[in-house]
């Protein structure tokens, strides 16, 4: 070994990066700084964190503390230069530590097992010594068979002066488990980096019946400037064909793409349409059961895919994935939407009817005219007064107030609720089912393109395999020395395992008792 002071500067840097000490410092550094990031809300409205700091440190200190934290990047700390630097340090530590140790480990792994000299037998953690009847030749066969049977080892042998030596090993490759695990972390980090540089993460609020050819980044869409609207209009007018859009804008495709990137508009390369959105509830409760969007993918004017997506069931097309993530009402959507009803007469004939807010329609097969007077997305009735009111902003319990007229005279009317079939019944066994206000809601889609995700998954698989090997498998070696004595043979067993020595020792004990038994039986 070299002495510390004889090492050059580069060697010392190398040793620093290869050290477990650095690994431990990095673990502690990442863990401690991450804690701060979970307390301060990330990428949030500054006001929220100032309020939080005021709660913890008092009103006077909060604003200046906020400024200090913000200038250090704590408000988006997982992307700050210093946090990324710790991650880079982590990766460098993993790489250099592996390069440093791997050659030695590979040597141990590849090196065939060799017979041992007499004195080395003394140093084993697992050591057995006993005497069996019969000569070494016979004992050798018995030992080989027993080891094969109890442990599954195939033995090598050498003839020695006074007998034989048998030896074998198993699981020498399990020493690489640690390196597979370390390597897998690098693979995952690589996949993440690819995702950051070549991927896209954004959203699209898609109203029912609308078609879009782009998605938006969170930051870009904040500032909806005139230029943003102008470019978006042109792109949508040409159904996502950027060549046509650039002609409309009087520019070329390349600079249009650059402008779009700056504004946070991501071209999908195809069109996506929301045919319908719906929330299912459990029974009559307001507990959501499923959020569903009926989506269609359109390419070159042709419908190429249709799928109903749910929270755990995204749609994937050409590397772009759409996830169900939120929903809401389109401003003015009720006024512009289509009220859909199903009218059914007593004899079972049914017909679908579409109408507009404030509009009228004739009930098929009758002389009644229905007029849509009012709408509530979530109708409830006051328990004391029974007065109707709207209890939520979302479409929890959509209801429509319909009045029925005959020859200009109002005959009857009332609220028809989508989720309550008992409100659909009209006099004379006629039913008017309220289906939906189509076009009144939008589905909030999370849109993602991540070419690195498969690398991340590969890394995860490698990590699972590496951890399994590293923790649950071990490198086991055994040497057996057979020494001829007068009518007997002295058996000396030395064995080692780099992990879980106790389990291997139990195996060796089992071997000894097995050997004793078979020898007795064979006599």
């Amino acid at each position, binding site marked *: 070994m070299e002495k510390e002071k004889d090492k050059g500067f580069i060697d010392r840097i190398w040793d620093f990066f290869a050290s477990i000490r650095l690994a431990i410092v990095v673990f*502690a550094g990442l863990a401690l700084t991450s804690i701060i990031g979970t307390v301060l809300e990330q990428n949030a409205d500054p006001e929220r964190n100032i309020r939080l700091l005021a709660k913890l440190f008092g009103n006077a200190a909060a604003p200046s503390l906020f400024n200090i934290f913000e200038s250090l990047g704590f408000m988006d700390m*997982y992307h700050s230069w210093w946090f990324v630097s710790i991650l880079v340090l982590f990766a460098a530590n993993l790489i250099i530590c592996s390069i440093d140790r791997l050659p030695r480990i590979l040597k141990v792994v590849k090196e065939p097992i060799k017979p041992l000299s007499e004195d080395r037998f003394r140093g084993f953690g697992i050591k057995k010594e006993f005497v069996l009847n019969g000569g070494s030749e016979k004992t050798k066969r018995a030992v080989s068979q027993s080891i094969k049977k109890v442990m599954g080892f195939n033995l090598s042998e050498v003839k020695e002066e006074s007998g034989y030596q048998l030896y074998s090993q198993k699981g020498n490759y399990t020493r690489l488990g640690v390196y597979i695990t370390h390597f897998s972390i690098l693979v995952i980090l690589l996949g993440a980096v690819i995702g950051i540089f070549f991927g896209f993460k954004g959203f699209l609020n898609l109203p029912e019946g609308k078609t879009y050819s782009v998605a938006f980044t969170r930051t870009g869409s904040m500032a909806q400037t005139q230029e943003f609207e102008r470019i978006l209009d042109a792109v949508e007018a040409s159904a996502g064909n950027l060549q046509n859009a650039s002609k409309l804008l009087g520019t070329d495709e390349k600079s249009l793409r650059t402008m779009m990137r700056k504004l946070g508009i991501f071209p999908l390369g195809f069109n996506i349409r929301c045919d319908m959105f719906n929330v299912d509830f459990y029974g009559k409760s307001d507990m959501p*059961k499923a959020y569903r969007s009926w989506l269609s993918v359109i390419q070159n004017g042709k419908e190429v895919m249709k799928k109903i997506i749910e929270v755990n069931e995204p749609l994937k097309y050409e590397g772009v994935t759409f996830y169900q993530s939120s929903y809401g009402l389109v401003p003015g959507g009720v006024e512009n939407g289509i009220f859909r009803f199903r009218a059914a007469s007593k004899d079972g004939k049914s017909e679908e009817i579409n109408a507009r807010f404030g509009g009228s329609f004739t009930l098929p097969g009758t002389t009644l005219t229905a007029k849509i007077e009012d709408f509530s997305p979530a109708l409830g009735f006051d328990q004391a007064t029974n007065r109707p009111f709207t209890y939520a902003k979302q479409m929890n319990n959509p209801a429509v107030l319909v009045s029925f007229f005959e020859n200009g005279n109002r005959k009857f009317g009332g609220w028809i609720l989508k989720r309550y079939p008992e409100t659909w019944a009209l006099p004379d066994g006629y039913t008017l089912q309220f289906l939906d206000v189509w076009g009144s809601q939008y589905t909030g889609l999370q849109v993602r393109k991540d070419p690195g995700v498969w690398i991340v998954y590969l890394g995860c698989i490698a990590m699972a395999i590496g951890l399994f090997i590293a923790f649950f498998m071990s490198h086991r070696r055994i040497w057996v020395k057979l020494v001829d004595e007068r009518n007997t043979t002295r058996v000396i067993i030395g064995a080692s395992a780099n992990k879980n020595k106790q389990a291997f020792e139990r195996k060796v004990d089992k071997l000894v008792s097995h050997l004793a038994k078979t020898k007795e039986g064979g006599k």
Partner: protein
Amino acid sequence: MDSSTLFGIATMAYILAMIIYIVYLAFKKPQIGVVATTVTVIGFVTQTFAILLRWKEFYEIGKMGILRAAPLTNLYESLVFFVWCLILGYLIIEFKYKNRSFGAFITPVAGLALAFIDLTGMDKDIHPLVPALQSNWLLAHVMMSFIAYSTFALAFSTALMYLILKTEKRTEPSYIFWTVTMGIFIVILSAMGLDYLTYKVAIKNPDVLIKSFLFKASFFSNSTAVSLVSWIIAIAFIFLVWRYGYILKKVIASFSLSPETLDEITYKSIAIGFPIFTLGGLIFGAIWADQAWGVYWSWDPKETWSLITWFAYAFFLHSRFLRGWKGKKIAIVAVVGFVMVIFTYLGVNLLLSGLHSYGSME
């Protein structure tokens, strides 16, 4: 018979087992030990049936397939499963190491956790799944996370016992560490119990209790006097634990568990828990998040705290290879690791907000 009756029987069995284990420790009669183990096994089997029965009840209500009816969806169910894993882990250790003294430590944890659920009137109803939880990953992710949490809990208790046995002087940093940690633990639990007793009437579920009433009956009381007295009592109590901690050492020394065995159990528990946590907690969690939200990693508090826990145990595993990091120092790391686990499990849901509150769909 429904699942809650069976859970009741299991709770009683664990509390009874605790008493028998303590009697066993006092008299050291093997027959008493056998009875203690038998009662624990009866409790365990009953609880297993209770979990399966609740699974069936959930399956019949939810109608979403057997894999999505695993009773692992809320605080109540996860606590029950955690206790189940803990008892299983303990029974394995008892069998492997042929030592029953440890039972006097584990059965009270199990019995008290189940009794705590009953006392606090925690919401035990079966609720149908919100959309985000309707995934087959739920079973694998949550089950493996809790198996790992239980191994970490076992490692925590053996590491703590190791520290208690190995420390000699009151001025020793490790002695100060374990007495103060244990003191804070007991103080926090008592303060929470006080909150519960004070505001019992107003509170229906523990989430609300912790979110808006935490320590309101003591440290954060509106009355300055109450808050001041609470702080003084807390500090005095921690001082007393520090002053008289050696009594506990005598108790544990009588368990005939060698520090080496404790150290070994600590290491082995973590060596089993770490890969399970990595795969089930982090990797499966990431895959599920990828499927449900379109991001495999979003640095939300629950994810980040899981990662912090992972780093703590990675620290533990690597520190064994460092010179001078044997024994007490790494026992401290194991204790700190479990504090991280508790925060990941409870603290994040109750104190910090994030995607895991399943409230993003509004």
